[in-house]
């Protein structure tokens, strides 16, 4: 373990700070010490100090500290209760496995759509264009999925990064929906009613997005803002699956029936989370 730098040698620490804060590592102990007296356990506890690692633990140090035995017993009970649930086993898989499971669900749905519910003109869809579409959203899908399933022992992504990634995903679906090379692929609607045609696509999109969202949430260990990223990943997945399923061309249809799915999913998750978190105490389970 690296040795902590000495205060006197640390250029970031101004002179006199040690006198004010007390020696590093024991500073709060000193800071709460009155007139050179030995601090009581309560004073240490009041300063939020750990008594761990002290050379001469005093019997009174236990005062003001929680009953760690009881905390551990409660923790064991929580662990045992969680272990009894099959879904918890998924959460405890290594991160690479969790990501693979989630990605596999999407790939399975995509292949099933190609095999059983392909767009009528799939054979006529220029392959480079299709690969460009799937490659662009696929890259964002992987990024979003990796962010959603980031290991919890690594620093969590900031809210700004999460929102930025989600906004980028939504913008990409919108841009690809209205860009002429993509918007012109397929049949023009018989009835020029974008909303009318958009509803079935949106429903289909939600149906395929749901399993993706569910599996990402199922293997998630409690990442902050994980729901938003899971919704974004599910929205991207739905757009890719719709691209190989829906033959209807036109920017309005693609914008309302395809791209909007991601926005609606994310918005829905945000609203539900806001409502649910009003009185919620942090809880992993």
């Amino acid at each position: 373990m690296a040795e902590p730098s000495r205060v006197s040698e640390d250029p970031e620490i101004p002179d006199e700070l040690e006198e004010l804060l007390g020696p590093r590592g024991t500073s709060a102990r000193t800071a709460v010490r009155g007139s050179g007296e030995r601090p009581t356990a309560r004073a240490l506890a009041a300063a939020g100090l750990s008594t761990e690692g002290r050379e001469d633990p005093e019997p009174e140090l236990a005062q003001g500290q929680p009953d760690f035995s009881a905390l551990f017993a409660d923790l064991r009970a929580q662990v045992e209760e969680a272990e009894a649930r099959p879904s918890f086993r998924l959460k405890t898989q290594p991160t690479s496995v969790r990501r693979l499971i989630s990605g596999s669900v999407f790939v399975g749905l995509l292949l099933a759509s190609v095999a059983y519910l392909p767009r009528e003109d799939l054979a006529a869809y220029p392959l480079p264009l299709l690969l460009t579409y799937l490659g662009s959203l696929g890259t964002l899908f992987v990024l979003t999925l990796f962010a959603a399933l980031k290991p919890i022992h690594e620093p969590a992504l900031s809210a700004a990064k999460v929102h930025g990634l989600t906004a980028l995903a939504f913008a990409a679906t919108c841009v690809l929906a209205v860009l002429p090379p993509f918007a012109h692929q397929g049949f023009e609607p018989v009835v020029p009613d974008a909303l009318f045609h958009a509803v079935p696509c949106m429903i289909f999109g939600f149906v395929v997005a749901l399993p993706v969202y569910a599996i990402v949430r199922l293997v998630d260990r409690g990442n902050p803002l994980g729901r938003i990223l899971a919704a974004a990943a599910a929205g991207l997945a739905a757009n890719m699956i719709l691209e190989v399923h829906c033959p209807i061309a036109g920017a309005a249809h693609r914008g309302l029936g395809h791209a909007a799915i991601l926005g609606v999913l994310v918005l829905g998750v945000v609203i539900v989370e806001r409502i649910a978190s009003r009185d919620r105490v942090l809880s992993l389970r």
Partner: protein
Amino acid sequence: MAAEQTDEDLMRAYVAGDHAAFQQLFDRYAPIVFGMTRRHLRNEELAQEITQQTFFRLHSARNDFRLDSKLRPWLLTIAMNLVREHWRRGKRRKMVELDPETKAAPQAERSRMELDERSQLLHAALQQLPESQREVVELHWFQERPYKEVAEIVGSSEGAVRVRAHRAYGKLKKLLKAEVAD
């Protein structure tokens, strides 16, 4: 007497299924995590809950533990993420009375009040720092972690952490000196 097992030995034993190792890890680190979270949140109940959740999450993430990993940064990162999540959710609770029992003898009481007052000053100064600076002070000063490890835990570069530390310590000095002068 057998040499004490390292944190990493215990973690490896725990990953292999040794439940006793989990308790040993809890015994070693729960007071550290509790002290750190209480200092951040000023709420004993919440600090207990986050301490439990930290270990619960450690349990759920144990299969990610690599042979070359160090446990302490792992655990502190999980705890810091939970603290940040708490702040993000806007669940900052009102400061609680940490020691409502005041049945001590007069001399001890007077001493304790002085100690409490001093600790309040320290906490008040810490609370005036931005969260990003406070967590650096917490890890570098109180937990005595080197800058490199602090950077690893908070997810920034070592240079950025040094800048935050420099600003934080400068501000703390100013605040505490002003309090002392008063």
